[in-house]
């Protein structure tokens, strides 16, 4: 597997994502600076990491979504390359129009930083096939703007198309329908607020993030 992690000014989980992908899949992972106008050839996975790109100014992820490299990420996503956006990465993918909806200020107005339990809503995806029949998983969450919002019509489409991948067991931030992670209609772009990159081996408190990366490997091995 060949993977790339994007790096924006203010990214702070870029190294975590690189190590998580390397350890779980053995993939070769390149770091790609946001000003780059091309991506490495033959990528199977692009990770948009967490952090505070552009200081979260204006709106979280808004300015990063217009960085030069994002035009290439949009093209790669349209070709079917897997894209995973975690935390600020999820916000960037929504702002870039690769995922529906938006992430707003947490309903409790507080930055929520804690381990969090999620249900896997759709096991039939390239991101979740390796979870088997595991009914819930633990990862950590750390954000101030994780409150997923979509208007009623968009929300219905997201639900009807089974685009909800993860839901919170206990809603920490006011997200509609307890949504923690969604994918696009084509099923190759995933955005999620919890961090699989901070939960990929038991020493980190949970290894429940690892099957997400194993799932992506499985798709490639089957191809």
């Amino acid at each position: 597997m060949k993977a790339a992690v994007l790096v924006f000014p203010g990214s702070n989980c870029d190294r975590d994502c690189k190590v998580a992908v390397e350890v779980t899949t053995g993939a070769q992972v390149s770091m790609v600076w946001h000003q780059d106008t091309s991506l490495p050839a033959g990528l199977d996975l692009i990770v948009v990491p967490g952090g505070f790109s552009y200081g979260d100014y204006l709106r979280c992820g808004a300015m990063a979504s217009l960085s030069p490299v994002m035009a290439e990420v949009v093209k790669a996503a349209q070709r079917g390359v897997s894209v995973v956006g975690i935390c600020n990465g999820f916000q960037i993918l929504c702002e870039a129009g690769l995922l529906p909806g938006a992430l707003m200020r947490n309903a409790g107005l507080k930055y929520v930083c804690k381990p969090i339990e999620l249900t896997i809503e759709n096991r039939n995806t390239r991101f979740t096939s390796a979870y088997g029949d595991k009914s819930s998983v633990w990862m950590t969450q750390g954000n101030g703007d994780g409150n997923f919002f979509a208007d009623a019509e968009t929300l219905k489409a997201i639900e009807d198309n089974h685009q909800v991948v993860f839901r919170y067991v206990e809603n920490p931030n006011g997200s509609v329908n307890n949504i923690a992670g969604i994918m696009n209609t084509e099923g190759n772009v995933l955005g999620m607020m919890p961090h699989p990159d901070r939960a990929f081996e038991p020493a980190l408190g949970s290894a429940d993030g690892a099957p997400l990366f194993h799932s992506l490997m499985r798709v490639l091995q089957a191809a």
Partner: protein
Amino acid sequence: MKATVHIFLKAGVLDVQGKAVEGALNGLAGTAGWSDVANVRVGKVLEFDLKSTDKAAAEAEVKSMCEKLLANTVIESYRIEVA
């Protein structure tokens, strides 16, 4: 020309900051008397200069900035003033 852009969360989208400010104003009612405050919305205002001297062209330019970057039209609405 001088452009001013006002951005607020759309009506119907819960403004949690507005609610918190409203609660604080109402909560201070005993000492300051603001119990009649309702529907507080917190937004942002951006001001900038444009080289353009054509009002219609400037408005169109600012509109495209709002659609592409300044506002997220999934959750926000905007109002433009050019003078």
